[in-house]
């Protein structure tokens, strides 16, 4: 189960309402995916993903000179904070965002509605 701060990270990464063809993370069933991920992914993957969530919640706001956690920021600033991780001069910080996006993409890129929107047979 994701805690509220972790949920805020995922929601900032894949928010609802961007396009009618693209559901938000939690509309698309991210909770079910995460339960499966926790159950079946290898321990190093799970720990790395947790580290990525932690860094996104607690470190990323500081990259845009805001106090953590991410969940206390308005939506625009949450996205700006995550983007700042991707542009950080520190390699590990960039890698943590890449990892966060990669694991979320495991779920999101496989979602039938997302695939239909892209013109792919689900």
């Amino acid at each position, binding site marked *: 189960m994701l805690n509220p701060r972790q949920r805020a990270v995922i929601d900032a990464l894949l928010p609802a309402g961007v396009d009618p063809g693209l559901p938000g993370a939690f509309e698309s069933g991210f909770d079910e995916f995460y339960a499966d991920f926790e159950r079946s992914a290898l321990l190093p993957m799970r720990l790395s993903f947790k580290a990525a969530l932690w860094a996104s919640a607690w470190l990323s706001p500081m990259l845009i000179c805001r106090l953590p956690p991410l969940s206390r920021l308005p939506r625009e600033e949450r*996205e700006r904070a995550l983007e700042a991780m991707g542009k950080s001069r520190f390699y590990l910080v960039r890698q943590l965002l890449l990892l966060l996006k990669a694991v979320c993409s495991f779920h999101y890129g496989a979602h039938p509605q997302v695939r239909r929107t892209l013109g792919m047979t689900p």
Partner: protein
Amino acid sequence: MRIDGSKPGAFKDEAFDYVIVGSGAAGATAARMLSDTGRSVAVIEEGPAIDPKEFRNEIFPTFKRMFRDQGSQVARGRAFIPVIQGRCLGGSTVINSAIVWRLPDDVWQPWRDEHGLGDALPLAELHKNWDLIERELSVARTPPAVWGEFNRLMDVAKKKLGVSAEAIRRNVKDCQASARCLTGCPTSAKQSMLVTYLPYAEKKGATLITSAKAREILWEGDRAVGVAGAFESPGRPRFRARARKAVIVAASAIQTPGLLARSGVDSPHLGEHFQAHPGCAMTGIFPNKVVMWRGATQGYDADHHRQDGRFKIETIALQPEIVFARLPGAGRRWMRAMLETPNAAIWAVQMRAWAHGSVRERFFGTDIQFSLTPRDLVQLRRGLRFTAELFFAAGAKEVWPGIHGLPEKILPGQEWMLETAPADSRSYSMILSHLFGTARMSLRRSDGVVGPDFAVHGSKNLFVVDSSIFPTNTGVNPQHTIMGIAMLAARRISEARL
């Protein structure tokens, strides 16, 4: 016969004439050849046997079932680089793009002249083997009917720029253009080892043992007499597969050195000289729909700079899960980038790196060390620039390099920027998928691990036939070379007095 080690009740101790460790391109080819001799053959595969009807077009379930470390294996060095390997019956041939390249003469010549392996790996005999393999695996150039738009666009670029590029030769029969090579071909059109040489060997009497990890070679003095390992079924029961004639290791350049080291093979070259082909992909955005999810997964490549630049450019269709992870932005901007992917083509630089790394067994698992050299980074940037030139020649409106330190989007006329990208491998997203050299072949024991007869130096009846014996990387997709050499090795082993 098949033995599924994930189910209770598999054997404890069995004897065969030949015991082969690994069921990928090398192991399956050795099994195909040795099963023709009428002797008993066992193939031991760590991963499961998966029916092609069960292949899914989603990455996470596929990674979990069919890829080593669920797709999370990485090389550590200056940067983390994912190392992609299949872990299932058929090995990486099940999850690769079926690309067929014969070993180029200019790569083989240093093997002969600098490493003295001209007699051990005679090119004329390899060509005969490749002729046979190509007949048996229906190798042909990818026909335009299954190119799909993302392959066709490279053909457009080729004609516009006049560069050397062509539809790729693949071991595929009746391709349905599903763009699903990387998650396992659902129609078995891809002639992977899972649907060709392994069933052939099985029909001739070979035993295919899956979900069975080979832990060590068994010895009597300096003679290899079998393999000990453990099944994946509950309780991890141990097994022994005794070999009356020979143990043949074909576990890949990552697993072979670990198995040999655990078994007491002692050589300063074991696990060293690790070479690879780093791949780095870029995204081109076109004015019209490309829809990379229809077409041959990798149907076209440009070898224009294969010799002078040590790189080749390949088209590739990736599942949305992989495409999304590398798109720029987070939140709404990331999702808007996803909406542009139907207009995207992905082409990748595959580089014949100079870098040498190492593969070692540690307490936490396999430790792969690999860092690009400054020379490699020069080549990589040249390759990326050439890729952008191809994209724009094909009509791309912008290119998304995905390189830290460069703009997110590059427009026509700005290709030069790619050669100014940081000379630091941490700025790039790469993968390693072609792996070589960790038990290299040499004439003398002081120079390598395996002798010209494919036997491990200083041992009897223990042979290595996979790409770990290659003295260098190849600069081209290695499956065909691996198979040609494994065929040669199996023939020699079957003729040897053991």
